[in-house]
């Protein structure tokens, strides 16, 4: 040991170069702050250093380290590669996977500062969110996702060998088209097992015995009872209709699919389900990671572990990430989830530590509570984007962002400003913004409502056209064609105005022989 003054803190690194020991040192320093000072709770970390091409690979398979093969991933790869080579698009500094252990990919081109930032952001920020958010806990199994992907890849490769690449490709094409409608939005009722069924039957019997009264027998019955629509009711109950998970329905009841085809649909559906909570928590997830890296980097600098130069480099990058252009800026392309998430979390920090009278009135539960991290950890665990905005978007932040609400009714000649950042507008804006993050409002509500079992086995779907926004017609027809191919018989989709119940539009498609099902018809 040759350091002279044990109290002098040496920076983790100087300059841009890094090696594995640098990464390890940075990780250890960050871990101390993240677990000790911020109280984060994380999956064990695994950090993979990768190169450009591997990053492009990961891009094309929606960030997963292994995936089944399909031409569309090749297409995405070609597009990303072309954009990257032309300098039109930079690559992400990292990709992080919601698995246990949590895998973060970091690029070899990153500077030492960027590696530190990326570790703080991904390996701690995202990791904490993955492990603690209720939606992710409920819907994804971080322990087994990689094994499942491994299985999926192998299974689909086997199918390709056995049934031919074309057959598998067509099936996956069709399944991908329906992927957004291949998720369960709510936990299903599991069919009860025999023992609990018995238990319930006994309880019911006991209850009946307890409340038994012979008088009821003497009460005269109405003639005929209910009108006889029980056949239809029974059919719909049997087929679990209405059903919004179209892929699930096909997997379970499509009459002509082979077992392997059902399994492939199941794979696509399971992967869609895995990503479903991530799409509902994107803003919070990014906000959480950004807030965490911001806190950690500042703390490292405070402790003298980061040089001033590294800090400036970090701030530059951080500022780019959380930049929110105004709506009339040519760079505007929607609300930046990083910016909104980070701003809201910083705002919560402010409310906890230096509340104003307004905050006291709006957020009595947390204003001035002092313990920022406890409040934030609670947010990260128990909210999704929609509920988080509904609960925590403060008037001050609305003013700061200059948020306003514009209503665009196709029947009116002009757009109308519904609300701005004033006393009357805060709640309206908050509600409207939250709704934009509500998946029930953003994804079209499509349900399979009936199957014509007696005659031609026609599958009937309804799209409840919220606010009379119809489906994009060309795409809808293509997807419907895929659906008909999978179903094997005709498919009919009605677009319905939920306000009046009137049918706005109808699309129909017939199954093409020889696409998914063999030609023998």
């Amino acid at each position, binding site marked *: 040991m040759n350091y002279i003054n044990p109290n002098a803190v040496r920076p983790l690194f100087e300059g841009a170069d890094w090696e*594995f020991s640098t*990464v390890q040192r940075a*990780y250890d320093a960050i871990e101390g702050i993240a677990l000790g000072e911020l109280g984060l709770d994380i999956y064990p*970390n*695994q*950090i993979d*250093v*990768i190169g450009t*091409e*591997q990053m*492009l*690979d990961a891009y*094309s398979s929606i960030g997963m380290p292994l995936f089944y*093969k*399909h*031409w569309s991933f*090749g*297409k995405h*790869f070609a*597009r990303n590669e*072309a954009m990257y080579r032309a300098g039109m698009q930079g690559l992400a500094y990292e990709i992080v996977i919601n698995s246990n252990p949590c895998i973060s990919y970091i690029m*070899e081109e990153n500077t030492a500062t960027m590696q530190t930032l990326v570790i703080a952001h991904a*390996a701690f920020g995202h990791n904490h969110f993955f492990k603690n958010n209720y939606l992710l806990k409920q819907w994804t199994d971080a322990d087994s996702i990689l094994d499942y992907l491994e299985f999926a890849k192998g299974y689909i490769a086997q199918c390709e060998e056995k049934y031919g*690449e074309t057959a598998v*490709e067509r099936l996956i094409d069709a399944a991908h*088209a329906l992927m*957004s*409608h291949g998720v369960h939005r709510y936990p299903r009722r599991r069919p009860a097992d025999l023992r609990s069924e018995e238990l319930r039957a006994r309880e019911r019997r006991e209850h009946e015995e307890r409340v038994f009264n012979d008088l009821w027998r003497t009460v005269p019955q109405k003639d005929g009872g209910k009108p006889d629509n029980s056949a239809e009711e029974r059919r719909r109950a049997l087929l679990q209709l209405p059903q919004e998970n179209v892929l699930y329905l096909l997997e379970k009841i499509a009459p002509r699919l082979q077992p392997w085809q059902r399994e492939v649909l199941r794979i696509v559906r399971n992967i869609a389900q895995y990503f479903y909570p991530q799409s509902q928590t994107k803003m919070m997830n990014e906000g959480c990671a950004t807030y965490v890296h911001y806190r950690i980097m500042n703390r490292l600098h405070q402790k003298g572990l980061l040089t001033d130069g590294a800090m400036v480099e970090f701030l530059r990058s951080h500022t780019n990430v959380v930049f929110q252009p105004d*709506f*009339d800026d040519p760079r*505007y*392309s*929607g*609300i930046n989830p990083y910016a909104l998430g980070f701003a809201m979390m910083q705002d919560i920090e402010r409310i906890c530590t230096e509340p104003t009278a307004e905050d006291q009135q709006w957020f009595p539960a947390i204003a001035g509570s002092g313990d920022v991290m406890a409040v934030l950890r609670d947010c990260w665990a128990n909210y999704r984007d929609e509920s988080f905005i509904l609960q925590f978007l403060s008037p001050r932040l609305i003013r700061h962002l200059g*948020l*306003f*609400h*514009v209503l*665009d*009714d*196709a029947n009116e000649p002009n*757009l*109308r*400003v519904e609300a*701005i950042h*004033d006393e009357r507008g805060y709640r309206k*804006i908050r509600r*409207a913004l939250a709704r934009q993050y509500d998946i029930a409002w953003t*994804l*079209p509500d499509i349900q399979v409502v009936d199957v014509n079992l007696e005659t031609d086995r026609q599958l009937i779907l309804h799209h409840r*056209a919220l*606010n009379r*926004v*119809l*489906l*994009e017609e060309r*795409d809808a027809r*293509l*997807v419907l064609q*895929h659906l008909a191919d999978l179903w094997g018989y005709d498919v009919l989709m009605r677009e319905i105005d939920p306000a009046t119940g009137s049918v706005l539009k109808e699309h129909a498609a017939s199954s093409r022989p020889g696409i998914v099902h063999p030609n023998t018809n």
Partner: protein
Amino acid sequence: MHIIDRRLNPSGKSLANRQRFMRRAKSLIRKAVHESTASRSIKDADEAGDVSLPAQDMHEPSFHGSATGGIRDHLLPGNKQYMEGDTIPRPPGGAGSAGAAGSPDGDGQDNFRFALSHNEFVELFLEDLELPDLAKRRVVDTESLSWERAGYSVSGSPANLALNRTVRNSLSRRIALHRPKTEELKALREQIRALAEGDPRRDELEEELDRKLRRTTLIPYIDPIDVRYRRFEANPKPVARAVMFCLMDVSGSMTEHMKDLAKRFYVLLYIFLRRKYERVEIVFIRHTHKASEVDEDKFFHSPETGGTVVSTALEEMRRVVTERFSPDAWNIYAAQASDGDNTASDNERTADLLTNCILPICQYYAYLEVGRDSEQFPPGFARRDSDLWQTYDNVCRPGAPMAMRKANHRRDIYPVFRELFARKQAPAAAEAA
């Protein structure tokens, strides 16, 4: 925490996906390649490159709301002037302010550029092209010998001495015949030196040394019977020797546009031959009222002008054939590009030369007539065929190894080229398969 260095993992994980994509997009990519050749300059027609694919043809559809109609909410940051209740004129393009609602799938509908590697490009570019009837002609003296290794022989030239094998033989012979080793002799000499003069054992040892030395000289280190040579056998390989004559009219009547077309045609031909047939000889002949054989550079780049006598080019071709390319030994091809003008008095002679001298020795004769870009004739008015076209039309009877095409515009060149050199048997073979 683990840090894992994955940089050395095999790359090209997405290769399988890329191939699937290429297979799926093959017709699109092929079309894009063909179109891109029309717009490229002559020089980089052989270069690899980006092709632009229309995005919607590789579209992945999904259910999503349309961008217009209905009631929409837009939440926008950066309010500067608006008050509640203000109305804003609908921005052009329909969908809300600044297109805030966008398309939810995020992908634009622009074309996207797809980079093909050099080989992928050329492969698609020259797909299904070939020289017709190559090597159908009896190829007498055109066998080349390729030498292949065929074991060892006891005789041969010193250059082919198989050193390993020779030493191996010698070693086994020396062991078998107990040739004393150098170390043995050395040890024996040491022993002798160590013993005193007059020691009885010394004589004994010296005797043994003598015997061993004698044995060494009798049994040579390498004997002629050890020596082996690498043996080569000559395998005759039939080689299709072919020559392509490129005849180009560079007379004054050819406009710059026409020359450009003709050059484009020959560039394609040149690339095609160089790529697919390494051993094809190419002879460049250009002509005005007189013809001369020139090199590649002059052919494509040097300006010249004068009258037009087509027969001179055919004469020149005949001269070159008699001098260097005996029709018995060579497959002869010719491609001619011209604007169709010819001195009237020369037509008969041209026809005569072609019918009697050129076509009989040719496997294939392609004639390309280049026209003016602006030549648009109203429908119903057939353009009068040029002198040369009429002349050739008479010659080009069914069965004659000759084809004629016209091209008026850059974009015609590649299709015409493909027509002229398309694989003739391909459709029949495909049907049979």
